[in-house]
């Protein structure tokens, strides 16, 4: 896809700005993990991992660390002072019970009503896998979706209705793509921020669902997010 767009790191930086200091945050595996690397060091964030960690720190130096201390993406991590370990059932109490302030999830599709599809496609014969996505999607106080605006083939991922199997209905609060920041509000989608150089019409053309625009749409400048 040609034309103006944010880089992956710009996107991650933009998501990171939405995470307030003091928040309990769960970052989904894949792209969302990047967000943790660009959050301002001025903020004190407590990262949660579904496998029973609160206060997760960065990866250990190569060859160091505990091989069983991994995050949800199965990568080695560390624990910050103040961190704690607990079992899976308690961990999912935190997720499903509304105790996680913000989660950043990847998405295959998001609907105009905030439905999220991020666990299965319509691919046939591929064994399915769900993990903790459904618990997080229904339980986190604020669900941010961090995804590309379209598929590699250019098919819109923001749609009137999801065509892939749902993860959860009506849960997404905000969508971050390389083109825009879009809020899910009662009645549909509102564009809050738009990448510099892209017209509203061009954004709408790459979006399956009808978009409204905020009174003041903020410009997202690549390289200066």
């Amino acid at each position: 896809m040609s034309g103006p767009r944010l880089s992956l790191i710009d996107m991650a930086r933009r998501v990171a700005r939405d995470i307030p200091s003091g928040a309990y945050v769960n970052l989904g595996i894949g792209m969302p993990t990047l967000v943790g690397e660009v959050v301002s060091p001025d903020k004190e964030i407590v990262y949660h991992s579904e496998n029973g960690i609160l206060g997760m720190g960065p990866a250990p130096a190569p060859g160091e660390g505990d091989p069983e201390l991994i995050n949800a993406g199965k990568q080695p991590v560390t624990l910050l002072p103040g961190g704690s370990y607990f079992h899976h059932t308690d961990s999912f109490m935190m997720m499903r019970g509304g105790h996680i302030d913000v989660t950043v999830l990847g998405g295959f599709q998001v609907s105009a009503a905030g439905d999220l599809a991020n666990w299965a496609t319509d691919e046939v014969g591929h064994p399915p896998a769900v993990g903790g996505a459904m618990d997080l999607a229904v339980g986190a106080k604020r669900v941010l979706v961090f995804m590309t605006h379209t598929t590699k083939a250019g098919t819109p991922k923001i749609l009137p209705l999801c065509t892939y199997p749902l993860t959860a209905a009506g849960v997404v609060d905000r969508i971050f793509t390389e083109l825009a920041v879009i809020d899910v509000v009662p009645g549909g989608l509102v564009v809050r921020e738009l990448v510099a150089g892209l017209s509203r019409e061009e954004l709408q053309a790459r979006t399956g669902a009808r978009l409204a625009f905020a009174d003041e749409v903020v410009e997202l400048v690549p390289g200066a997010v």
Partner: protein
Amino acid sequence: MIDKRVGSLPEAVAGIGDGATVLVGGFGNSGIPVELVHALLDEGARDLTLVTNNAGSGETDVAALIREHRVRKIICSYPRSSGSIWFEERYRAGELELELVPQGTLSERMRAAGAGLGGFFTPAGADSLLAEGKEVRMINGRRHVFEEPLHGDVALIKARKADRWGNLVYSTAARNFGPTMATAATVTVVQVREFVELGDLDPECIVTPGIFVDRVVEVAGS
């Protein structure tokens, strides 16, 4: 910087409004957040619903709230005790509504609230009067009663130590309802014997991670 420590008991209970549902930890005289309950008494909120295992004894804490007409309803497993005079007085006078819940169900209903569940079926009480008006279902050949989550606006609990993130460890059997109540309330307020530095609590031994805690206040000697 995350810092859940507050400097005084009034600050700890500030904002508890009339009509609030308040979860109060403790079993018998073990683990009762006595100073927090007295602070709530001073704060003045009325028309409260208390969720607590016992209904107070003598003239202190929960008994004092009941005596001072602050409590409209109590959700409880064992209101009677040797000194539960104010509970009995107000109950007999028809001034205090009682919802009696089996002790395990009381705890499990709060856990369900904290865990984001919509309710559960339990065999406890399913054959009893306490199941009246509730859905009863045969599961694996046994009667089970459907119980709903029980959420609090505020939880008042007692622990032994806390750090600025609100991580908690408890002391012996004073732990009782504390960890569950901490998960089940919008605002969880904890009195601790001692503040410690972040990192001083063993991450393998933290009982209540700070995610469940909003305010901690130090009450030396408690």
